[in-house]
């Protein structure tokens, strides 16, 4: 009780966090003055790089004739593997990502050389003049190809809970099915770009668009064969990333650094959009088989699933991504017995990589489809089946042995059911469907439970650096990178709150490996959680020194000192913040501090597949309604109601932006966005003309977002919750609603709808249930 009161009074004292402050760069964004890497004023003597690739998806490189390339106008240098002083590798975990092909070809277009020229156009034109000869081998393009060929990039992995085979056998009902889930191109609006500037002693400064400056620094040092300390990587902002600039920035940063080292001149590479789409990894597509056993009420007795993913040619982050698919194959549902397997398939395509949700969405799709299958088999409303299967008291251990302690979903789902008017609209939809032939409506209300923390435990650490200058202005650095998600403003709010000053007193600086070392990627939704705490710890250390100083200088006890409203209240008097700072400086108080944070409580044992990989879960629910033309497969999303849990928000405007944006991105993944590969391994949908992310009119006309009101039970930064990834999975409700519309055609059949639900995919499912 007293703890609650404390919290309430603490909450009332907050002045800066909780406020819907604008993105710190908003005014610059709209004026065109926010500087992205390609906008940095070009240094004198800048050279431009273009990469050249192989014309086959597999086989051996026979020879590369670069004579015409070297002779082309403006060409200064041509680089191949032989030019790399250190390691020809930019692989993040398993070292299997060469900067340049040496002999074995792994995917169509894989980089074999790079041209360095005076202008970008000259470099691009020259790159086309190479003659690359290859002995073409056999290759796998799809998951199916790789399964047939037994082509694995990493060993299979399984979570086991209880005896699922016995539990399946004992179940009153069983359903088997298969779900095909497409991949997804990140389509960050700013493509991959890096600018490398050589310094003295072999030093290298690299401006690049990446979520992982430390990894870029380490990989580049290894490639250049210089100490890590010689390389500085700086990121002011990215024009979108979504996971696509975690590992995938490395090859281009490496090319820029290599070219700069060899030519001794600043070098820049900016990929053309089509090259970016052809040469960088995407979300993993999955082919998932499942069998679920359940009782007459639709309660799951056992789930068995084998999820095979297209990892591409190298391991990249596929291990952890597949792990997360397994961590979320339960979604929000209690599985008394389960066997959850992933197969990590090697294909001769780009190496698939992190993408918002990181395998979680694909795992969740299986759980949500299994629930729909149960509802269809028993002719129950899917929402009732969902509610019956939620985690609850005595039903609270996940398949990986973690206790679900903060299960707010039963209440959250109930609220969403009411605010979306689910039951009444269900009846209206049934009436509409009874009266219409070509058009059918569908609706679905789906929960999301997403685990927060890197499942690779050591990554859950962060650092920050705070300086206070003599005029009271504050300089903030931390390991988080800004890709539009608002981490800079959120962490600045935390620091401003700590010092009791306005957020605009906090100068936000580019993320730099020279300021904060050994950082983790800004990923796994963890950015504000861990960097926020690290920055608070840094600011808190300075504040503590200031309190000690003021207590002595003004002869008061520390508890009588308070920082707020840009002033410091000391006993019965107050002074401007800047004045106290000036006095502290003269009294020789250190006004600079680093801060560090590591996430508590988490542990994970990969060998047993048990532990507590997540500090906490973020929850949400979405109710979507769609209109489907069952003669052509055309579909329109008509209304969406979202209720999402962000704990106590650091910045509700930023959080709502993440929820809306994540939802629409997820909707694109499951509807309009289709990656199509040619049998020879070429990506055919390599530009926005052929790969269709949602545009404005795809957003439902009725789009209602609400925040769940409740603090994080764990001691996160100001009791907030991570929000980057979880909302993407709310879009599974759109996919389920489409299946629901198709189901109205024949209540006796399961709907074999595959993702993405393009008109063709929808029509195929319609034909399957009506044939």
């Amino acid at each position, binding site marked *: 009780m007293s703890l609650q009161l404390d919290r309430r009074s603490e909450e009332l004292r907050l002045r800066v966090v909780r406020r819907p402050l604008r*993105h710190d760069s*908003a005014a610059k*964004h709209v004026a065109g003055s926010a500087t992205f890497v390609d906008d940095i004023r070009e240094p004198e003597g800048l050279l431009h790089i273009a990469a050249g690739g192989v014309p086959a998806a597999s086989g051996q490189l026979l020879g590369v004739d670069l004579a015409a390339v070297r002779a082309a106008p403006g060409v200064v240098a041509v680089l191949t593997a032989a030019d790399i002083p250190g390691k020809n590798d930019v692989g993040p975990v398993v070292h299997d990502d060469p900067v340049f092909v040496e002999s074995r070809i792994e995917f169509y277009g894989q980089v074999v050389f790079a041209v360095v020229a005076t202008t970008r156009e000259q470099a691009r034109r020259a790159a086309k003049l190479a003659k690359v000869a290859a002995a073409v081998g056999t290759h796998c393009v799809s998951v199916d190809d790789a399964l047939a060929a037994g082509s694995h990039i990493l060993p299979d992995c399984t979570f086991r809970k209880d005896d699922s085979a016995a539990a399946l056998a004992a179940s009153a009902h069983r359903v088997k099915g298969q779900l095909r889930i497409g991949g997804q191109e990140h389509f960050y609006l700013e493509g991959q770009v890096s600018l490398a500037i050589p310094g003295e002693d072999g030093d290298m400064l690299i401006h690049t668009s990446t979520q992982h400056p430390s990894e870029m620094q380490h990989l580049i040092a290894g490639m250049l064969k210089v100490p890590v300390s010689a390389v500085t990587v700086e990121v002011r902002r990215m024009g979108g990333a979504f996971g696509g600039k975690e590992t995938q920035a490395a090859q281009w940063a490496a090319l820029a650094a290599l070219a700069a080292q060899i030519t001794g001149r600043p070098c820049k590479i900016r990929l053309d959009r089509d090259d970016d789409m052809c040469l960088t990894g995407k979300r993993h597509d999955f082919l998932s088989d499942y069998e679920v056993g359940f009782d007459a009420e639709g309660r799951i007795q056992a789930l068995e699933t084998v999820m095979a993913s297209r990892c591409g040619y190298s391991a990249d982050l596929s291990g952890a991504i597949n792990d997360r698919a397994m961590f979320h194959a339960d979604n929000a549902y209690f599985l008394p017995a389960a066997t959850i397997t992933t197969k990590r398939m090697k294909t001769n395509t780009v190496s698939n990589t992190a993408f918002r949700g990181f395998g979680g969405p694909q795992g969740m799709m299986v759980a949500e489809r299994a629930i729909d299958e149960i509802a269809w088999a028993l002719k129950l409303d899917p929402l009732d089946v969902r509610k019956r299967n939620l985690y609850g008291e005595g039903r609270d251990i996940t398949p990986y042995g973690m206790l679900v302690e903060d299960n707010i979903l039963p209440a959250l789902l109930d609220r969403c059911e009411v605010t979306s008017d689910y039951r009444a609209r269900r009846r209206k939809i049934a009436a509409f469907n009874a009266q219409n032939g070509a058009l059918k409506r569908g609706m679905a209300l789906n929960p999301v439970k997403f685990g927060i923390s890197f499942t690779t435990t050591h990554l859950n650490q962060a650092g920050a650096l705070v300086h206070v200058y003599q005029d009271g202005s504050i300089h903030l650095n931390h390991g988080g990178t800004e890709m539009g998600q608002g981490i800079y403003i959120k962490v600045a709010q935390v620091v401003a709150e700590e010092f009791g000053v306005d957020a605009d007193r906090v100068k936000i600086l580019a993320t730099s490996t020279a300021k904060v070392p050994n950082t983790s990627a800004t990923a796994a939704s963890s950015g504000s959680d861990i960097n926020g705490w690290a920055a608070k710890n840094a600011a808190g250390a300075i504040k503590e020194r200031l309190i000690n100083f003021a207590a002595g200088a003004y002869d008061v006890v520390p508890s009588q000192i308070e920082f707020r409203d840009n002033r410091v209240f000391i006993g019965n008097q107050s002074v401007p913040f800047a004045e106290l700072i000036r006095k502290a400086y003269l009294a020789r108080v250190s006004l600079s501090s680093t801060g560090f944070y590591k996430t508590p409580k988490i542990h994970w044992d990969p060998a047993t597949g048990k532990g507590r990989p997540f500090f906490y879960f973020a929850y949400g629910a979405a109710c979507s309604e769609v209109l489907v033309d069952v003669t*052509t497969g055309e579909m329109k999303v008509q209304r969406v109601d979202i209720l999402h849990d962000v704990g106590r928000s650091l910045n509700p405007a930023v959080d*709502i932006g993440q929820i809306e944006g994540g939802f629409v991105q997820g909707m694109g993944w499951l509807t309009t966005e*289709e990656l199509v590969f040619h049998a020879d391994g070429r990506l055919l949908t390599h530009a926005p003309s052929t790969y269709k992310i949602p545009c404005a009119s795809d957003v439902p006309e009725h789009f209602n977002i609400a925040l769940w009101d409740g603090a994080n039970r764990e001691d996160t930064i100001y009791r907030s919750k991570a929000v980057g990834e979880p909302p993407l999975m709310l879009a599974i409700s759109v996919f389920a609603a489409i299946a629901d519309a198709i189901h109205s055609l024949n209540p006796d059949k399961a709907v074999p709808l595959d993702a993405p639900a*393009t008109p063709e995919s929808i029509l195929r499912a319609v034909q399957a249930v009506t044939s």
Partner: protein
Amino acid sequence: MRGEIRILRRGEVVKLSGISPTLTLLDYLRLTERATGTKEGCAEGDCGACTVVLRRLRGERLVYEPVNACILFAGQVDGCEIITVEDLARDGTLHPVQQAMVDLHGSQCGFCTPGFVMALFALYHRADTRPVDRQRVNDWIAGNLCRCTGYRPIVDAALAACAETANDWFSTEEPDVRRTLGDLKDSEDIFIGTRERFFAAPASITALAKLYFSHPDATLVAGSTDVGLWVTKQLRDLPKMIWLGRVKGLEEIEDRRDAVSFGASVTLAEAMPYLAALDRDLGELTRRFAGTQVRMAATVGGNIANGSPIGDLPPALIALGATLGLQRGDRPRTLPLESYFLDYGKQDRAPGEFVRVVRIPKFGEGEHFRCYKISKRFDSDISAVMGAFKLRLDGTRIAGARIAFARIAFGGMAAIPKRARTTEKALIETYLDRPDTLEEAIEALAQDFSPIDDLRASAKYRLDAARALLRRALAEIGGASTRRTRVVGFREAADVAPA
């Protein structure tokens, strides 16, 4: 003869004489001016990050046109003022559209933002698009992609900023700008370069015919929404470029009692109201044709002349019975549009011959028209299947009407936009209210077309969808409400929708 292009830029007339024919406006801005506010997102006119606004005189009207700078050649902005994102704020005060974007959290990563701001700035200044409601904003920004926000705050910003009549510093300076742009107008032919390498913009049909006749290897450019990609994506060298945008007579629209004609340089944006007036579905098709920026540049003539198998207008125009006027030297000729398309990548156009005009006949008594586009995304996508249907019914009663005549064309079903002649024949003498009489015609589609599998759809889907579209057309012409036959682009208002 003029050896330079002239643009108005930040209050100054800028003359460009030594430009390469393939210099894009975006490269001019970012590399020459070092004005880096305008971004390159895709370099193919599909994402809108490079949107700039051309303030120009169209006849006597001063208009604000958002265009994609990435695929517009610098020569094509002759006589225009170029307004970029850096130009909107004045004396430290953001423009109302910028302020609304800031206030309503319309930017996240900020990379697409300059393009959205410029698109909204143009919308703010376009009296013809008021009142600005959500649907209009969605249409207007269909050519701008944002991957972060989910669009809602951007649309809200547009609604907030465009609620009032335009009244900003750009409105104030309009009289001066009108005068300056008026002074830049002349009837000179532009020729920059040499006989081997040039950018030319003839001012008359005679000059165009003569120049193209003597340089049949030159590339004709109208809006450059296709040719632009030859440069940015294929890195093709186009040494000789002839731009149609200054040719007097090609910009004409003739709206007669029996037909409407579009000169070869009439843009989709300009043609749109006339097409919409012909038939609501034609308006909807044009609305879904690319995005605003592309429609501001792309031409009806270009969409035909380039012979694309997936061009969205030709199937509709073929079904409507359009004819094409061509000219080579001083010799004009006319042919039915469907005869222009010979085979994949092959058209009935001789070297040195150019499209001069497209003529679309209006509807006669008892004639009905429908057209539909199926694509993965509704807006700004290329069709997987596009079907267009023109039927003439006997008598005035629709119920029980007999089909007397049918013209049906499809896109995406063959290497060229093509008529469904077997199906057309099979429809004659059938009755709209007797489905059994129609089945034979629907099945005949399989004889007319053998579509292929590609990235947009499979052959099977295409044929299935084509059948569905024919059924839909017959049902609708037979009286069914489109509220029961389609999911977008309704012909009836919402209040007649079923409960």
